[in-house]
């Protein structure tokens, strides 16, 4: 667990997010933008549902044979002149990356967007050791300036508006004309572009993530819309790829299939603007490319998920569709989740990576509406996996005592139908009588959470089972 983790304070985070009017406005864009675009893209492709099945099957097959594919992949990378480094955990990964940067004599490192880089907190580590990391994805660049975590896995700065970005740029880009016009988003974009252009050229090492690693060829694949990933990995002398072990797929054909659901699920594009395949360092016949090509393959909790109830989570291809469609994410945004991965995929993955004792709120703070599962391109049964976390919590007595005793009280009656009928009958007569006149309760004991935001409709008074017995016993059979 790292210093930024606020998952245990999820409730406080959520309350703060709900009161943040600027954030609420920004979240409105998530709701409208992503959902319509995905729906249109899916509707346009007749084989979309079949492709989801196929993507699921490819990932399942890979996970079942992950050891074999890891070995095959490593052999191919080595054969193409690259190097594979295995990192058991975040600390190992940081050490490996730092020593590779030192070998390259790096002063600045440019970075493509990578969630595993956030997970292992590589930026802090490099900075502490005198190396300057520069995020080159626009959203990541903005949140790096603000010292924030991404609030969305594909749109890291989705919680911000243009005015906030303008303020950050004026604060940081001090050498530029203070009277320049930054009122249009396109002006912000071109300023970032010109600032980053110098950084690209000055970088000694480029670090990217990987959307896929191809065992057949030893290739790493990234998809971006800004082209920053390509400049990050082509211009410096050394390219370091960071990837968690579940990014593997067997063949180029498999990647081509999964790519067809990835962008459509994420942004509604048929394809991302750039889909880049990298195999080893620059060859003599290549026009450009890095001299050194390293892959840091990071486990950091994944292998423990293999063979467990949570293996299916390792199919995730990080499209963000689950959070784009999640009513809870829409309400509180990504930062409330308190760690790297927000939304439904975060609610399953975070407890696996930092512990359910710390991230227990995440799989509980869901209505189980199932919209995430209904759009997941690799058909991860997210609600089911969240329920598995609740089972783990229940087994370990992690739920609050009041909740546990309430559940035990209810269970006692639910398991004894005769007693249940008697008790509920009396209770409903009382409640029904008390609420008859207004038809609802504005306040009820033990239901504060409910009545804080809504009335509690009064019961009719007689239970169905009592009335049925009374009415039907009079009728001839």
């Amino acid at each position, binding site marked *: 667990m790292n210093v930024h983790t606020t998952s245990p304070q999820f409730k406080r985070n959520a309350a703060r997010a709900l009161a943040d009017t600027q954030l609420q406005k920004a979240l409105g864009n998530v709701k409208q933008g992503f959902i319509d675009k995905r729906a249109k893209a899916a509707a346009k492709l007749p084989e979309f549902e079949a492709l989801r099945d196929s993507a699921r099957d490819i990932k399942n097959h890979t996970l079942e044979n992950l050891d074999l594919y890891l070995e095959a992949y490593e052999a191919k990378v080595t054969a193409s002149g690259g190097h594979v480094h295995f990192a058991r955990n975040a600390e190992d990964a940081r050490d490996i990356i730092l020593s590779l940067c030192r070998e390259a004599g790096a002063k600045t490192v440019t970075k493509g967007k990578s969630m595993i880089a956030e997970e292992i907190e590589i930026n802090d580590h490099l900075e502490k050791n005198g190396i300057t990391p520069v995020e080159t994805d626009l959203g990541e660049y903005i949140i790096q300036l603000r010292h924030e975590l991404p609030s969305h896995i594909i749109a890291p700065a989705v919680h911000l508006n243009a005015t906030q970005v303008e303020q950050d740029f004026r604060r940081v880009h001090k050498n530029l004309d203070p009277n320049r016009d930054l009122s249009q988003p396109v002006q912000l974009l071109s300023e970032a572009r010109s600032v980053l252009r110098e950084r690209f050229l000055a970088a000694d090492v480029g670090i990217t993530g990987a959307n896929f690693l191809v065992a057949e060829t030893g290739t790493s694949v990234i998809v971006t819309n800004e082209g920053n990933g390509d400049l990050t990995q082509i211009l410096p002398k050394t390219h370091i790829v960071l990837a968690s072990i579940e990014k593997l797929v067997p063949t180029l054909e498999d990647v081509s299939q999964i790519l067809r659901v990835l962008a459509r699920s994420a942004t509604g594009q048929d394809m991302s603007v750039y889909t880049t395949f990298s195999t080893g360092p620059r060859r003599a016949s290549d026009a450009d490319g890095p001299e050194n090509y390293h892959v840091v393959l990071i486990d950091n909790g994944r292998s423990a998920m293999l063979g467990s109830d949570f293996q299916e989570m390792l199919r995730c291809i990080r499209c963000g569709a689950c959070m784009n469609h999640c009513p809870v994410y829409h309400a509180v945004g990504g930062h409330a989740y308190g760690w790297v991965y927000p939304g439904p995929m975060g609610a399953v993955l975070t407890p696996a990576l930092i512990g359910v004792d710390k991230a227990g709120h995440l799989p509980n703070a869901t209505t189980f509406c199932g919209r995430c599962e209904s759009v997941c391109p690799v058909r991860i049964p997210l609600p089911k996996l969240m329920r598995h976390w609740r089972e783990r919590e*229940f087994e370990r007595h992690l739920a609050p005592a009041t909740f546990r005793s309430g559940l035990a009280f209810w269970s006692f009656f639910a398991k004894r139908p005769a007693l249940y009928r008697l008790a509920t009958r009396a209770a409903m007569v009382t409640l029904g009588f008390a609420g008859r006149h207004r038809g*609802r309760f504005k306040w009820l004991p033990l239901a504060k959470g409910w009545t804080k935001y809504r009335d509690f*409709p009064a019961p009719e008074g007689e239970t169905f089972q009592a009335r049925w017995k009374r009415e039907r016993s009079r009728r001839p059979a």
Partner: protein
Amino acid sequence: MSADASPTERRAKPRVGLFVTCLVDLIRPSIGFAAVKLLEDAGCTVDVPVQTCCGQPAYNSGDRATTRDIAEQVIAAFQGYDYVVAPSGSCAGMIKAHYPELFADDPNLLPKAEALADKTFELTSFLVDVLGISKVDAAFSGTVTYHDSCSGLRELGVKTQPRKLLASVEGLTLVEMNDSDVCCGFGGTFAVKYSDISGAIVDAKAKNVEEAHARTLLAGDLGCLMNMAGKLSRDGKTIEVRHVAEVLAGMTDEPPIGAPKLEKGERP
């Protein structure tokens, strides 16, 4: 069913065990009676075995042992019927989608759980998909809007069935709200445990309901209905809220959910 019915007639009439659902049993029995009327009008014999709950509160709280105990009770209670019908997509979904999962490692109970799952249906989908009904004999004047409850929609595919039946109700006009298929924020214990978030989600839902400008809001699950009705009444809205079965059965004498119950001559 009369005692002198011939064996053929007896076989022709499907025997339905009504799974009332705990919320309907406790809070709004009239929904259960509306369901009985719809089923009997459709030619079914309806019986109500002693029951408590489908076990979902325990299941979603991670308490599998209690859930299995409750599920075993339900399996035993409903063994003898041709069909089991619930006026709820959530409870029917629990039985249909989750009971077999719950007993996946129990060779003795799994076949029983699967048999129950196979014959269990949400009310409107039973009427339309199983019995092939497309019309009901009911009248309701005014515009209604329909909220698709999540479990029914995504676990059972309940979407067109209630709309098809509503289209046959005399005098009724259905106007669709925006995001009718987005969660209302109920989520069982979620509404109490994470009330701030639940409150924000139902706030968004209430706005969509209001913007549809319908007189009545309908849905097929009482949990969602209580959540939305409670929010609308808290905000001082006059939109009536009812279970879809009440309208389809023409049984709307009971005041809407959360509205005062008035004696004759009494004014609100």
